[in-house]
């Protein structure tokens, strides 16, 4: 090995090292940069969700809204009170709806009925619906899971 060759080889080695090192750095920087960019959905939906306009919800009617991975139902009683429940039927997990004619929350799957307090009063459902809190801020109904 001559003296001329040695530094040349070292030069190549350093160059390669820089190349691969740059690649390694890039594979660290890229995920971090992507992580830092705000995600499309900016926040974790957690304990509460907006359930639309309070005005638009007439007495003796109800509305089903998504709440996390499950549906919730918000109703306005004939007396004008707002109430919210899990909309998952306690029988076989169908989504319940409001029946103005019955003045009850009703499950179409097997005709399960819940009263305006979410109590199972007719049909197969074995348990009441889980209650949520419904509040109004501005004109927006906000449903909150009870901690």
């Amino acid at each position, binding site marked *: 090995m001559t003296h001329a060759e040695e530094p040349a080889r070292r030069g190549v080695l350093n160059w390669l090292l820089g190349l691969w090192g740059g690649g*390694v750095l890039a594979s*660290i920087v890229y*995920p*971090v940069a*992507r*992580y*830092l*960019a705000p*995600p*499309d*959905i900016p*926040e*974790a*939906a*957690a*304990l509460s969700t907006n359930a639309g306009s309070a005005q638009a919800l007439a007495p003796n009617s109800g509305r089903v809204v998504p709440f996390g991975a499950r549906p919730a139902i918000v109703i306005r009683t004939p007396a004008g009170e707002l109430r919210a429940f899990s909309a998952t039927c306690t029988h076989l997990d169908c989504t319940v709806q409001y029946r103005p004619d019955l003045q009850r929350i009703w499950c179409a799957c097997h005709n399960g009925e819940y009263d305006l307090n979410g109590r199972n009063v007719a049909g197969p459902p074995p348990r009441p619906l889980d209650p949520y809190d419904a509040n109004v801020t501005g004109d927006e109904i906000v449903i909150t899971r009870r*901690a």
Partner: protein
Amino acid sequence: MTDGRWRAWIDERFPLDDVLESLRHKRVPHHRYSIWYYFGGMTLFLFLIQVGTGALLLLYYRPSATEAYESVQFIVSRVPFGWLVRSIHAWAANLMVASAFAHLFSVLFLHAYRRPRELTWISGFLLLLLTLGFGFTGYLLPWNEVSFFATRVGTDIAATVPVVGEGLLRFLRGGDDVTGATLTRLFGFHVAVLPAVATALVAFHLLLVQRHGMSVPPSIEQRAADPGTVRSIPFLPHFLLRDLFAWTAVLAALAALATFFPWELGAKADPFAPAPAGIRPEWYFLWAFETLKHVPPTVAGLSGEVVAVAAMGLGALAALLLPLLAGESPRARSVVVWAGAAALLFLSVMTGLALRAAAP
């Protein structure tokens, strides 16, 4: 020669050249136990990874009982590469504990704690405790079922500490039970108190290491014809490049672990649900958990748990003060080796028993 101008500019304001100069003269002994010199650097590297990934997690994490779980779920499912960051933080935490233990035992068996490195040992031991503290406080943060109940059990053990137990329990939990208050509290420790203390201690530890250089094990020193002539390699670049090699390899391993074995999130903690079966603390606390299972209910008229906790505390204290307790004689050194081996055996057997009990 812009390079030189820059150097001059900096040097005028900060003694960079002095630092580089001393590093250039730093040498690391090279012998058959040299491999163990790498674990300190590895622990440091993993700590830096934790600081980096921890800071990233903080951008999206929310420390409250109502939102913690959802925010971690958000990180791993919605934030690009959030799954990677979280899994690396969780995996690196485990590797860091393992690496810190390896570092401690290698220092012990190579007798590197001897004069004048007593303070290095003591600060290092405190750093190990801090690392365990990081693990313990971080575990609850995702607010999932396993971590919730493991934290309940873990803090319960604190209650058995003689005299201050009750107070300690309330201090750790921020109340009588594990609640959202505990989460906020452990979060504060995890991301503010412990990092601040750890950073200061790491700096102190490194300063001492720098000051004293690497210790040469007595056995190697004796074997060398002349004590001053143990073979060594320069820190720059020989040792540092080897360090870099190990760090890069571990980084790749971490990425692979995170991709193929993503850290589980499980179900959200429900404080009112009955504890699910198989609740265990993290593996590095298993030995203590198992020991408590084996102590008889009463020892010499005292509660067995209290005795065991007191014994573990004394053991930790003895380990902390090891360099002050152990003399300089070869006999004293062999006592240390045997005690270290016994401790290692005890930890491994207890951990093994706990793991075996957990396996179906």
